[in-house]
């Protein structure tokens, strides 16, 4: 029997919740972000998650808040932490979707996609 991991996706903007069931061993599910990452799983299952840098740990647009199952994800590194430091709406369980890899084949993960994942920052000079 293949493993079944689940990610429950809650959208802060009020869109209907989604639940994705998948076998982590079948990653990658598409080509952006780390293989088996939350970004990879979501995009590969038809759920849009912004990733302006292409999923290369160079921006914060794939910021998600992990509400459950965080211990089944790969640990963050200094590069991810440095970017998260600048993410709007940072929480203690924030992660970059492109970097957080589902490591447990039976993971049960809950993520919230913040309303503002965006770092489309307008200049302080009013531009």
């Amino acid at each position, binding site marked *: 029997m293949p493993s079944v991991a689940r990610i429950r996706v809650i959208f802060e903007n009020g869109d209907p919740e989604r639940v994705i069931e998948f076998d982590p061993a079948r990653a990658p599910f598409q080509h952006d972000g780390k293989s088996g990452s939350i970004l990879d799983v979501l995009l590969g299952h038809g759920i849009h998650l912004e990733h302006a840098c292409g999923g290369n740990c160079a921006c914060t*647009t794939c910021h998600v808040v992990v509400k459950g199952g965080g211990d089944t994800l790969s640990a963050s590194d200094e590069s991810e932490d440095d970017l998260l430091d600048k993410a709007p709406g940072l929480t203690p369980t924030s992660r970059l979707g492109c970097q957080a890899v589902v490591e447990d084949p039976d993971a049960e993960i809950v993520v919230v996609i913040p309303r503002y994942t965006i770092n489309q920052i307008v200049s302080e000079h009013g531009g």
Partner: protein
Amino acid sequence: MAVEHAARVARIVEHAPDTRSLFLRGPRIAFRPGQFISCLLPVGGETLIRPYSIASSPEEDDLEICLNLVPGGLGSPYLLGLPAGAEVRFTGPWGTFVLDRAPEAEAIFVADGTAIAPIRPMLRRAVATATRHPLHLLYGAAGPERLLYRAELEAMAREHTGFRFEHVPSARLRDAVAHRWVDGDADRGRRFFICGVGAIVPALRDLLRGAGYERRAVQYEKW
């Protein structure tokens, strides 16, 4: 979903056989020096997302992106193959590697190769808002003939006495940083803005933070 913009390639400047700037003309967007746009490229029947730093300044009409051919890449051959007049769709601006004004401390900019792209508008802003604190650019490239914007940077150094510009071979960037700003003195009040490709970037970050510079004093973008 992010707002999409459409622009035309208004002009192409060839820096070297494998390195060009594309000047994109379309709706004028506000951005901060150091930010990038995310190009949506129709390649192989799908849309590739590829980030490119904005090499121009917010005050200019066209958005300049500067890129080189990445062996085995998909995005750079597409963009480098575009003729003048071609359409480019993108989202943005994006990114938090930014500089709005010169820091209230000595500032060191480190760029390797085409990673001068985001550093260039940051430097322009820095010299335009400079106070009494020195500004340095350490620019890594295989040889001086590979430096992009060399004439502009040299002119900047002539016109702004507080700004110094040095070229070092890319392979010696780490040693140069260590020699000048780690082993050279005990001052740990400087600010660093580093951009490059691959392992050199975290290597410099770790070197500087390990030497006692504060985490937020070492800003970087790794390509």
